[in-house]
């Protein structure tokens, strides 16, 4: 249980302050905010002790690197080169000389300090508005040293929230499928990593094919499809204990699982006799309910955040299209009417949008539409890409992309990519192996 491990203590309380700088999150990265991330200062004694514990030369620098990297990849900030900094980190943290930071065109400044307090890692940081010459935020954390990367992510989230007015998404993890081997015989394993690609861990050995892992709302459980014993079924995995169990006892392949927003149910498809319908199973009382009943393929179900509705794709019109219905299966309504095929609808955590994959004229798109199907916006086009998953604040989508092979059938790759809802800031997320089917966790720290 991640929350248990961390023992995080927030000491200082946010400040009364009147922000002058504000980052408009809806505008994309046209004009990222210039920000100076001064390395967190550290006294010699603490530096030596953390070098021993964590094998890191300067843990203050390491943590500020995490913050800087997070802010840069968000596309909303432009961290300035440290070589231009005039003021030493320890002095800047006491009282920045705003003229110096103004000179290098920084609009915001982050300073801080790391120390060893009873073998614990204590980190304090401050966010400054350079033009107004004011402190905007000051917080301190004390935690076990092993949590140093998470501290960097939590600081990033606090800064993001203070400057954009919305929750961040840095203290999160991605579960995905790690892929290796030739295209005709892929070996697939469940893997988990921090949102920035660090702390990668494999959760299965690759003995059986696994697909489409998805977190529960607390990000401690994962539901996925496994071909264990050549019986493709939906499974449940407890990340902390490693316990796996099959979900329910169905007379055919179960697939496309997701949790309900309260985490109490799994919604999935059952394929039988050439038809695929949507079912739910309550994880406590094991009661199974059939939600759709149609000779077509109904799959890829995803709940609205309030649990009242479900979006899914179906080929009942003859082709794969997106539908919504009440979560009891009533009031089925088709919402996608554009040219092409539509699949993998996922309801945004804010509730107002549905992200999807679209296939049109041999190209694959990741896009979003409103829940009534209007306002379709295609964010990215490629040879093959699918399966978007939302960041917990609903601002970024992660998905996977596959490459075309050459004449000899070689050169196939599968990688994770992210893109902002604005359609800007497309980035590959580095993984040790090829990767697909990403699912974004909730914020781990709040």
């Amino acid at each position: 249980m991640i929350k248990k491990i961390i023992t995080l203590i927030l000491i200082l309380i946010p400040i009364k302050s009147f922000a002058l700088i504000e980052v408009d999150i809806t505008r994309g990265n046209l004009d990222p905010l210039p920000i100076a991330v001064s390395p967190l200062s550290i006294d010699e004694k603490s530096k030596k002790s953390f070098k021993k514990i964590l094998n890191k030369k300067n843990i203050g620098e390491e943590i500020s690197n995490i913050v800087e990297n997070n802010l840069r990849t968000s596309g909303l900030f432009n961290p300035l080169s440290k070589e231009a900094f005039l003021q030493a980190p320890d002095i800047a943290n006491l009282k920045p000389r705003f003229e110096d930071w103004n000179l290098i065109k920084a609009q915001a400044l982050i300073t801080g300090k790391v120390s060893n307090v009873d073998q614990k890692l204590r980190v304090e940081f401050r966010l400054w508005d350079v033009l107004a010459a004011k402190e905007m935020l000051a917080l301190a954390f004390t935690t076990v040293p092993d949590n140093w990367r998470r501290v960097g992510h939590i600081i990033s989230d606090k800064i993001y929230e203070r400057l954009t007015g919305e929750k961040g998404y840095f203290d999160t993890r991605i579960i995905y499928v790690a892929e290796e081997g030739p295209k005709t015989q892929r070996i697939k394993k469940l893997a988990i990593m921090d949102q920035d690609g660090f702390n990668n861990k494999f959760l299965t050995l690759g003995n059986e094919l696994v697909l489409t892992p998805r977190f529960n709302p607390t990000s401690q459980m994962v539901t996925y499809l496994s071909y264990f014993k050549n019986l493709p079924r939906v499974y449940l995995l407890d990340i902390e204990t490693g316990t796996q169990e099959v979900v329910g006892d169905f007379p055919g392949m179960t697939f496309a699982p997701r949790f309900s927003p309260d985490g109490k149910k799994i919604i999935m498809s059952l394929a039988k006799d050439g038809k695929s319908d949507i079912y739910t199973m309550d994880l406590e009382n094991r009661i199974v309910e059939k939600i759709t009943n149609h000779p077509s393929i109904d799959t890829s179900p995803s709940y609205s955040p309030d649990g009242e509705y479900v979006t899914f794709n179906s080929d009942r019109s003859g082709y794969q299209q997106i539908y919504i219905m009440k979560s009891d299966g009533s009031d089925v309504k088709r919402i996608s009417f554009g040219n092409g095929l539509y699949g993998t609808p996922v309801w945004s955590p804010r509730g107002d949008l549905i992200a999807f994959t679209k296939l049109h004229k041999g190209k694959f798109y990741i896009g979003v539409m409103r829940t009534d199907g209007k306002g379709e916006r295609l964010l990215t086009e490629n040879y093959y890409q699918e399966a978007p998953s939302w960041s917990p604040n609903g601002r970024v989508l992660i998905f996977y992309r596959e490459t075309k092979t050459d004449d000899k059938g070689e050169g196939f790759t599968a990688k994770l990519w992210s893109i902002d809802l604005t359609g800007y800031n497309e980035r590959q997320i580095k993984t040790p192996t090829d990767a697909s089917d990403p699912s974004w966790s909730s914020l781990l720290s709040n």
Partner: protein
Amino acid sequence: MTLSKIFKNSLLVLTACLVLTACATKKEIATDIKGSMQGDVYTGTDTVEYLAEGVPDRVFFATNESILTTASRETLRAQAAWLRKNSGINIVLEGHADERGTREYNLALGERRANAAKDYLMTYGISSDRITVLSYGKERPVDSGSNPLSWSKNRRSVTVKAN
């Protein structure tokens, strides 16, 4: 209707038929040269294995379809005859899709294709007890190419001996 009118009409039909046949022949030759596809259904033998002499192990499908072609039905009738002769053999029908679809939909599509084969075998007297259906979606292509011919080989239902 006068006799002459009937004669005129049938003549018209006859001419139309002739024109159509000519077209069809031309088209077939063209696709044959291009590579073993009719419409976008694979008709070649590149990846096909045999359960016994004259009994191909697989049938192919058009994009997004699970309808059995004439050739597929012929293959399945041969499989059914072979299965009737070898009553101790059980089979797994492995349904597959090409890479040009979303993963989850393709899992369902593979299941639908394998079931199309299963239904046909059952109408030719093979008991459902002897048949297991297993969909791989797009997870196990036979051809790793990214072109229409490769995709056509991958849209398939393969009959595999289970014992």
